[in-house]
């Protein structure tokens, strides 16, 4: 009896929590279909803002920049991560070096961004897309290395031994045995890095300079200067894409040691 009461209490609390989490998003999505701009009340259903989103040049430029940065950062951090695992397989003494990469998760991003900016500006490196890629690849390494390393440690070493016994070289073993076994964790880490880079705001805010615009910076600017429902239309589309990515991520079912 008492436990049933607890259950009802907790379920109510959870219902309210999810309402708290999703009510703003639902309102946001509903207003993306409103023919009038916000503060105005609901008028009638229209796809006007989606049409305007389609023709918004600045927004699409920012979007492409974000995509370029995210893809490059993902590619760079994955490549470096895989290479590091190859080195790790060869040498037994790498464990404490791996620890170096956990710093990215511990230090708040704003400190990291400040550090990177002071460093870059001291050597008068011009800020722009390349510096963004550098920063995001660094963020990416902080996720790729721990995730892939965790998966690597779980691998059955006997498979490697068998491969070496049967005459394969180290690089053959890595490419034909180890790498295929690492693929799920590589995809998961890649997805995570892509989305983190794509959604990143703080680091981009510091390291983009005045010329390069990413989608996050564009949205920030628009919210500040009074946004139009174009952002709502964009949010709706991005939510759909993210949902698909999350499903893919859950489907991979990789134990990420982030939480």
């Amino acid at each position, binding site marked *: 009896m008492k436990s049933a009461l607890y259950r009802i209490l907790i379920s109510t*609390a959870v219902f309210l929590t999810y309402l708290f*989490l999703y009510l703003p998003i639902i*309102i946001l999505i509903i207003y993306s279909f409103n023919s009038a701009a916000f503060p105005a009340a609901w008028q009638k259903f229209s796809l006007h803002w989606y049409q305007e989103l389609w023709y918004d040049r600045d927004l699409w430029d920012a979007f492409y920049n974000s995509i370029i940065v995210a893809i490059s950062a993902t590619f760079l951090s994955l490549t470096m991560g895989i290479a590091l695992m190859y*080195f790790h397989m060869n040498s037994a003494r790498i464990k404490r070096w791996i620890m170096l990469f956990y710093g990215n998760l511990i230090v*708040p991003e704003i400190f990291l961004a400040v550090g*990177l900016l*002071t460093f870059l500006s001291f050597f008068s490196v011009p800020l722009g897309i390349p510096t963004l890629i550098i920063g995001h690849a660094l963020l990416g390494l902080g996720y790729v290395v721990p995730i892939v390393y965790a998966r690597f440690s779980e691998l059955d070493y006997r498979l490697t031994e068998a491969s*070496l016994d049967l005459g394969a070289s180290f690089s053959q073993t890595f490419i034909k045995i180890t790498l295929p076994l690492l693929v799920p964790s590589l995809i998961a880490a890649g997805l995570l890095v892509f989305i983190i880079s794509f959604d990143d705001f703080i680091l981009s805010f510091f390291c983009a300079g005045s010329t390069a615009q990413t989608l996050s910076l564009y949205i920030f600017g628009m919210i500040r200067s009074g946004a139009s429902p174009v952002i709502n239309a964009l949010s709706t589309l991005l939510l759909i894409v993210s949902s698909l990515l999350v499903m893919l991520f859950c489907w991979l079912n990789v134990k990420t040691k982030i939480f």
Partner: protein
Amino acid sequence: MKNRLQSLFADRSAIFIGMPALVWQVIFFYIPLFFMFYLSFNDSIDQGYYTISNYSSLFKSSYIPVIFRSLLLALFTSLSCLIIGYPLAYFLSFIAGRAKIFYLFLLILPFWTNFLLHIYAWFYVLERGGFLNRILLWTGLIPEPIKFLNSTAAVMLVMVYCYLPFMTLPIYSILEKFDRRLIEASKDLGATSWQTFTKIVVPLILPGIQSGLFLVFVPAFGEFAIPALLGGDRNMYVGNVIVQYILGTDTMSLGAAFTVAVSIILLLFILFFAFIIKKVIKD
């Protein structure tokens, strides 16, 4: 066996293949952090001229309340997330049953979408003609719209909103492994629900709470976007001051000094936290 095999087959050039990641990490992470420290002892305008005036001017300025306010905000956010997040994590692991994957999906989704869009979504709720004011006006609780935006309350609310998943997921992952028989055993042996909760459940899920607190407190302390968009101009937080100094003209050294000072305070606060949690475990 492992070592012998490795020495037989090991690829001597592997060190060069493994290097880029390590070099990248050191050059763009550790050296810049050190650099920030170095720059904080430089004169703002005349670089290369060493001074501690950056630090002394920080103490003279009015930024002590800013740090204090940020600490309070981070503390409020992490405790609120804990109070809301624990029942949620409990629900996910023990009550949700087969629908669990769906609820988890809803909890992870915000983490995968741009959080600026979530902040933006709150404008629709909190604006003068927004959802909340409409509801309140309709029910007749208030005679005219309330100004919710540009206030500390708005910042606090959206902070909790944005950081909730970071608290819930670590607790959930610990509760998932929790052996429910322990609770039954405790109750069988005559403990009350409250005793079971404080003596059995809390000590066992403490690691999850600890990492949740860490994941929320640290970024919440340096948060920039939420106060900048929802907090108005009067209430400055650590993140805003850092941005103002670092991106301002000729104040970069001062900004570096502020960042260093703030990170030391943050570090001390975390150590203090860890000390208290250790004390709690011992008792």
